[in-house]
C-alpha cells in the first residue's frame, strides 16, 4: 500500500530534479527576498534602538533566513492541484484510482518537499550564511524540538490548503482561493514580521487562530525565544489544530464526493 505512495513521491522528486534552470532563478529570488528583509531589520535596529526588544538583531536575522527557507520547503500544491483538476475535469479519472485521492496529493507534495529541501533550501541557507553567518539554533535542544514542530507546522499548512482546495468543488468560478489564503497566512503566521512585534490586540486574536502555529512556533523554538516547556505546550496546540482541521477536511471531503457525482463530470 505504502509502495504506491512512495512511487508517486519518487516520481515527483525525480521530475523536479531535472529542471535545473528554474531552480537557479528560484534560489536567486528567495535570496533577494532574504537579503532585502535582513537589511530592513538592520536598518530598524540601527543605533541600538532594538535594545528594548526581547529579540536581538541576530535572533531576527536567523528568524528571517529560516522563515524564508521553510517557506520554500513547505510545499502545499494540493490547493492548486484540486482547483486545476476540477477545472479541467480530470478529477473524474483521479477518482478511479484505487487509493485515497487526498493521500495521493499528499505524496505528490512530499516529493516536491524533498526536492525543494535539496535544491532550494540548502543553497539558500548556504548563500545566506555567506552574507550573514550561519544561522545557528539557540541550543542543541532547541534544534531537536524545532524538527518535530516543523512537521506539525507542515501538517497544519497542508490541511488548510486542502480545505481551501475543497472550496473549488462548490464555487470553482471564483478563481483560485488558495492565493487569498496564502496571502493571509503570510502575514498572520509571523513569517514576515514575528507576531511578537504586533499590537497586543492582534496577538490575542491570533492565539485562537491556526496561523501563528505554522511559522512562528517552530521558529520561536529555534531561536530560543520559546523555552522547552512552552515549546511542548505549543506543540500540543499544533497537534490539536491538526485534529480539528483533519475532522473538517474529512467531513468536507465526504460531501464533495456526492457533489461531484451530482455534477456528473
Amino acid at each position, binding site marked *: 500500500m505504502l509502495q504506491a505512495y512512495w512511487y508517486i513521491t519518487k516520481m515527483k522528486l525525480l521530475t523536479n530534479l531535472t529542471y535545473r534552470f528554474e531552480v537557479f*532563478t528560484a534560489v536567486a*529570488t528567495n535570496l*533577494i527576498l532574504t537579503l*532585502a528583509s535582513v537589511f*530592513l531589520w*538592520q536598518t530598524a535596529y540601527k543605533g541600538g534602538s532594538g535594545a528594548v526588544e526581547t529579540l536581538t538583531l541576530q535572533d531576527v536575522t536567523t528568524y528571517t533566513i529560516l522563515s524564508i527557507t521553510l517557506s520554500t520547503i513547505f510545499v502545499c500544491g494540493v490547493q492548486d492541484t484540486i482547483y486545476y483538476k476540477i477545472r479541467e475535469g480530470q478529477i473524474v479519472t483521479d477518482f478511479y484510482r484505487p487509493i485515497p485521492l487526498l493521500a495521493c496529493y499528499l505524496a505528490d507534495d512530499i516529493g516536491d518537499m524533498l526536492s525543494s529541501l535539496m535544491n532550494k533550501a540548502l543553497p539558500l541557507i548556504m548563500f545566506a550564511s555567506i552574507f550573514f553567518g550561519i544561522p545557528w539554533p539557540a541550543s542543541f535542544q532547541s534544534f531537536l524540538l524545532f524538527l518535530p514542530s516543523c512537521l506539525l507546522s507542515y501538517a497544519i499548512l497542508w490541511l488548510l490548503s486542502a480545505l481551501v482546495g475543497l472550496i473549488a468543488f462548490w464555487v470553482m*468560478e471564483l478563481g483560485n482561493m488558495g*492565493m487569498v489564503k496564502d*496571502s493571509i497566512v*503570510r502575514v498572520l503566521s509571523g513569517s514576515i514580521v514575528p507576531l511578537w512585534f504586533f499590537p497586543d490586540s492582534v496577538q490575542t486574536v491570533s492565539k485562537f487562530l491556526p496561523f501563528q502555529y505554522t511559522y512562528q512556533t517552530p521558529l520561536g523554538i529555534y531561536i530560543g525565544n520559546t523555552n522547552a516547556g512552552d515549546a511542548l505546550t505549543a506543540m500540543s496546540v499544533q497537534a490539536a489544530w491538526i485534529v480539528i482541521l483533519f475532522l473538517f477536511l474529512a467531513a468536507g471531503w465526504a460531501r464533495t464526493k456526492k457533489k461531484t457525482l451530482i455534477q456528473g463530470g
Partner: protein
Amino acid sequence: MVSSIKHYVSVASCFARLAVQRQLEYPLFLFSWLLMIPIQYFSGIWMLKIIVDRFQPLNGWDFPQLTFLYGLGLISHGIFVVFFINTWSIDHMVINGGFDRLLLRPMNVFFQLIASYVNFIGLIDCIPGIIIFIYGCEIAGFEWSLVNIGKLILVLIGGILIRAAMFTGLGAIAFWTKRNGSMVSFALTMLERATMYPLSMYPYFLQALFTFVIPIGFISFYPAAEFLGTDNGGLELPLSFALWTPVAGLVCFLLASVIFRYGMKNYESAGS
C-alpha cells in the same frame, strides 16, 4: 505618417477591446484576485507600520513618507502591469511559436507584442496603489500644486518606461536561449524591494547598482525623496529628479528596443 499612426491606433484599440472582453467573459474569476492583491499590499504597508512603530524611522523615513513611497512604487507597478504584461511571456511565445505570428504581420513587432494584450486585471493592482498613495500624500503633507502634479506625471511615465525596458531586455534573452526561466519573478521581487522600500537601507554597492547600472532607484525612490525632502542616500544631481526619471526611462527603453531588435535578428523559430 498620419495615416499610419491612425492605423496603429485603430489596431491597438481593437486589440484592447478584444482583450478586455476576453477577461470579462468570466467576471467572477476576478474575485480571487480582487481579494488577494489588496490583502497582499495593504498587509505590506501594515508590516512597515508595525516595524516603524516598534523601532524607529527607517534611515530618516517615517511612516507617512514610507507610505508615500510605497504608494508611488505600487501605482507605477500597477500601470505597468496593465500595459506591458506581455513582456513577461516573450519566452512562452518563442517556445510555443506564437512569436512567429507577430513576425508575419506587416506591423512593428514590439508594438504588436505590447498592444495585443491590455491586462485589464492589472487595474486591481492600481486600486491599493492609489488608496495607499493618496493616504500617503495626505499624512506626509504632499502639496497638490500644478507643478507637483506635472512632476508626478513625468515620474510615473519615466518609471513605467524603466520597468518596461527591464522586462523587454529580460524577455529578449529568450531569443538566444529559447527560455529565460522564471527571471520574471526574480525581477519582480527585486523591483518591489527597490521601489517600495527606501533604497538607502541597502549597502552602498547595491545603491550604486540600482542608480547607475539598473536605474530602478529613479522609478520612485529618488523622486519621492525629492518631493518630501527626505534623505536619499547622498545622490546629488542638478535639476529635478522629475526630469531625470523620464530621461532614464527613455534611455533604458531605447537600449532595450535595440537589444530586442538585435535579438530578433538572432531569432530562429522553435520549429514546432
